[in-house]
């Protein structure tokens, strides 16, 4: 593995965070300021239940414009659950119930006037495992523009597909096999294809759920680079298990524990001077 040595980015460790159970008697109210001056989305007092089981407790958090917020925390602490609240993907799960407010540009996401179709077009999502459709690369990217009627003709469509692939950094690799199935790409390429698919409808917010967990370091690096690019035009919320990744790509970081938002603040502060004991344990456990 010589290639990894040439990378400027240190290799993220794929260790599990240390066990922090037994500390539930600690105060779990949020430390730090969860608001931002120019919020794109606001989460207020959100509780999420799966049937009887509660997965999220009283979470407040803002997603800022043209910024990346990273969500970290041990496995099962509710990061995915919270992320899926933001574009109502939880609606598709039987028995999942959301209480509290989620706002986008001042409008309640769970209000009766909100159409989840429109919401999801504006709040795109990239999943943990790359999930290209069993269609051609072109059709994968063209899927969103087609269903939403964003293009008038084939030329428009081709342009959208090309720009999206370009911005996802995939165009050079696939431009002469756009008609090949998207499932035939490598894992990293597939994930970038999914990102291209998501940005093809020009969403305002992009939610990424561990987008690099199935990828090797090179592919990870490319996607991180891509996130840096995308930040200029989109607001991004990313869930990650890699502390380094959070540090590299995000401006703000939120640390979750057992369904509570324990600490939130600028990424620099969180990683250098964590205020909450749990945050510190999690981060130091990571860095040894």
């Amino acid at each position, binding site marked *: 593995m010589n290639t990894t040595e040439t990378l400027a980015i240190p290799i993220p460790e794929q260790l599990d965070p240390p066990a922090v159970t037994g500390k539930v008697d600690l105060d779990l109210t949020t430390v730090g300021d969860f608001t931002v001056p120019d919020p794109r989305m606001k989460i207020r007092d959100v509780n999420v239940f799966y049937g009887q089981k509660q997965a999220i407790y009283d979470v407040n958090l803002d997603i800022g414009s043209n910024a990346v917020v990273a969500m970290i925390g041990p496995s099962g602490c509710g990061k995915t659950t919270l992320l899926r609240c933001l574009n109502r993907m939880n609606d598709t799960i039987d028995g999942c119930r959301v209480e509290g407010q989620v706002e986008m540009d001042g409008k309640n996401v769970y209000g009766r006037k909100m159409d989840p179709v429109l919401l*999801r*077009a504006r709040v795109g999502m990239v999943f943990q495992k790359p999930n290209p459709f069993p269609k051609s690369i072109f059709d994968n990217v063209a899927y969103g523009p087609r269903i939403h009627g964003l293009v008038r003709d084939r030329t428009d469509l081709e342009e959208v597909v090309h720009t999206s692939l370009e911005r996802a950094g995939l165009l050079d690799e696939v431009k002469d096999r756009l008609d090949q199935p998207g499932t035939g790409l490598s894992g990293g390429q597939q994930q970038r294809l999914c990102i291209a698919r998501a940005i093809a409808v020009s969403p305002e917010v992009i939610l990424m759920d561990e987008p690099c967990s199935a990828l090797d370091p090179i592919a990870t690096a490319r996607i991180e680079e891509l996130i840096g690019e995308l930040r200029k035009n989109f607001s991004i919320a990313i869930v990650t298990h890699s502390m380094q990744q959070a540090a590299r790509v995000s401006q703000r970081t939120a640390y979750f524990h057992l369904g509570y938002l324990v600490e939130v603040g600028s990424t620099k502060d969180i990683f250098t001077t964590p205020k909450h004991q749990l945050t510190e344990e999690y981060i130091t456990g990571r860095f040894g």
Partner: protein
Amino acid sequence: MSPLVLIFLLLALSSAAYFFSQRRMLRQTRNANVARLNSLPEHFGTLGAIWAGAPALLVYFVWLIFEGDILMAQVLAMLPDPESMAATRELLIGDIRNAINNPMSYQMASEEVRMAADRYHELSQTATLALTATCLSVFAICSALVLKFLTPRVRARVRVEKIIRGFLLLCSTLAIFTTVGIVLSVLFEASRFFQAVSVTEFLFGLEWSPQMAIREDQVGSSGAFGAVPLFAGTLLISFIAMLVAAPIGLMSAIYLSEYAPAKVRTAVKPMLEILAGVPTVVYGFFAAITVGPALRGFGQSVGLDVASESALAAGFVMGVMIIPFVSSISDDVITAVPQAMRDGSLGMGATNSETMRRVILPAALPGIIGGLLLAISRAIGETMIVVMAAGLSANLTANPLEAVTTVTVQIVTLLVGDQEFDSPKTLAAFALGLALFFITLVLNFIALYVVRKYREQYE
């Protein structure tokens, strides 16, 4: 002693051999430690029982299989003038058999036949005696061998398990024998048919009227045997059935798996499955008594001439029968598409129906097509509905309001009632059976292949 008593006797003797061998092994090893035996005493018992009893049982069954034919041959040889008694040897044998099995037929049979039947009875009594003697002596000899060779050093467990394994394998191969039996039986009779009627006439002839004899004595041309109208009728009815079953089955599977609340799903699914469990003869009755007349009445009220045994009625009811089949296969296939595909599409802002039509269905298409092929093969092979609700006359038409006939209907009409295995009329049924078997085999093969490939794709 009747053969039935004999078999129970043999089984009882074998059980005795079991206990005897088991005890004997325990006795012989009383001094040695039982735990040091290479097998459990039961294994020795079983082995003893098998060695002692199996050969006799084998003799018994082989004997019974051939006894009838041998005795009949002897009876026939004894008859002074068999040729004069019936048209063919088969018919004569049939007459005698009837006289033997059925007291009524015996009373009505001719003098010679009665004599033959009496003779058969005598012979069979002697034969049973001989069989008893043979079986018992075989058992005795084998028991002696058990005494001599079944020693504690025999690895009884391994041997017993080998024998059981052989038996299990034999049972598994029955599937092959069944297929071979089907192929041989239809091929054999069909080949006799094709000696009288050419293959091309059968496959491409447009006229089907097996009942009409042109001349009394003319063997081999008792009618016309062009099967095209039957194939066309079968296709027409299957097509109508699929027109009903495919959309309803597919859409209800989609509705139940994607839209219906869990409660509705758990209530409706078993109800649809009831439709699948209703015997086809019930559907046939439904088609003939309710749907056929209703369609005819409706046709009259709008000025259409609907035959009372129209292809439409049969096809429609067959479609209803196939709905649950299509819907359960579609359901399997649709739920096999990973949730990630749904999430991907919904996450882009697609509606449920867009997700279904543009992502799930295309992904599930091979599986659905495989399922539909299986459904078509069912429709083609379905018998009772068409026998009861479709016509008998072979019309070559594409009009669903007219009566058509199908391959299965003709097989049934040709074979129910008097069978003459030397006339093309009866043999034609086997030629049709061959065609039916071949077509459904090919369809099943393709369907199973497609479905399997599809499953592998997502596993």
